[in-house]
């Protein structure tokens, strides 16, 4: 007589070869045991149907919560904003949506200190702003004359890559942001695809060389 423990473990493929052979032998000759196995297997199948793993709309909220940096990394206001935007953008990337910054107003402002650095700091140089290290990375100018600058904000072990574009009123607005890999890691910029996509969305652009950038900064 097969007990339920054995039948159950057989169903789950948890028996060693010897005991599995024993159970299979038994099932061939004992129709009661075979019927018992079928009933348990059938109940398993219905139980799985009862609990489907379906994706749900509210998963987006959880995903945003998961992708946002943890509270101790967001003491600074800029970080909260960059992180929130980064989370939105990342989730957008995760669900395969493409973010076109040019068609929608950017929801997050660049701080006054950051705007000042964007107006004055040459690419390749770093400065402190709002409690974080601000590192200017590059400047591009689109065919219609708009200038955007990429920079990296680093605070503790958390870093974000940000693309900001100069608005017509002379202010700066954030066009894209994404978490960057930590400085000590091999791959230099995991935020790059998001930033690259945002730069591509500008249309054809020229990367400003040092002289062109100097001219822009001293305008």
């Amino acid at each position, binding site marked *: 007589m097969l*007990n*339920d*423990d054995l*039948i*159950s*473990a057989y*169903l*789950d493929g*948890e028996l060693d070869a010897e005991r599995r052979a024993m159970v299979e032998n038994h099932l061939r000759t004992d129709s009661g045991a075979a019927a018992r196995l079928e*009933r*348990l297997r059938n*109940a*398993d199948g*219905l*139980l*799985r*149907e*009862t*609990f*489907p*793993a*379906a*994706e*749900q709309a*509210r*998963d987006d909220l*959880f*995903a945003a*919560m*998961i*992708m946002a*940096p*943890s509270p101790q*990394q967001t003491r600074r206001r800029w970080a909260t904003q960059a992180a929130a935007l980064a989370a939105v953008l990342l989730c957008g990337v*995760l669900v395969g949506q493409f973010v076109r910054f040019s068609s929608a107003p950017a929801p997050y402002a660049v701080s006054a200190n950051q705007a000042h650095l964007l107006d004055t700091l040459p690419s390749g140089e770093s400065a402190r702003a709002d409690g974080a290290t601000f590192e200017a990375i590059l400047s591009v100018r689109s065919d219609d004359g708009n200038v955007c600058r990429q920079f990296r904000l680093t605070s503790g*072990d*958390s*870093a974000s890559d940000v693309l900001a574009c100069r608005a017509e009123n002379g202010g700066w607005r954030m066009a894209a942001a994404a*978490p960057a*890999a*930590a400085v000590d*890691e091999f*791959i230099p910029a*995991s935020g790059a695809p998001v930033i690259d996509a945002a730069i591509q969305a500008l249309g054809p652009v020229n990367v400003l060389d040092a002289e062109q950038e100097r001219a822009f900064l001293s305008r």
Partner: protein
Amino acid sequence: MTRDNLAFRQQLVSLLPRLRRFAMALAGRRDLAEDLLHSAVERALRNWGTFQTGRRLDSWMFKIMQNHWIDTRRAESSATMQTFDGIDLPGEDGREIVEARDDVRAARSAFAALPEDQRTVLALIVIEELSYAEAADTLNVPIGTIMSRLSRARAAMAALMQRANFAQVRKEN
């Protein structure tokens, strides 16, 4: 955010449907399950540094959820009753419909009638397809306990469902 952390978070996002399902199997009620999922995700994000790469994230999360559920239940005595009313199945047009098939409904009420430890082990092994060793680790009990609990749970499920079938046949005649 380090790259490891990012990978961890992305994996966590991809597990959400299964984590919600496990929460539902534990809590039995949609609102309690959502609370449980929320708390477990928060706890995981606080403690992600203790997650060892190479371990299964799903089983690590189930452990967090199971522990949290026990804590919650302890705090609220055992006043909450499971209902299992709110288990919705997605319809073909994307809307949620309540599954009306008799056998699935019978399986649902049979599951709801089981003691919590049996529900948990069924959820981990039958629904989430963990191995006995992984389930034993998740619940912090020996494998022998998993085996006996599981076979009792299956026997009880089968018996309850058979009873429901008889009742159904009587009703139809």
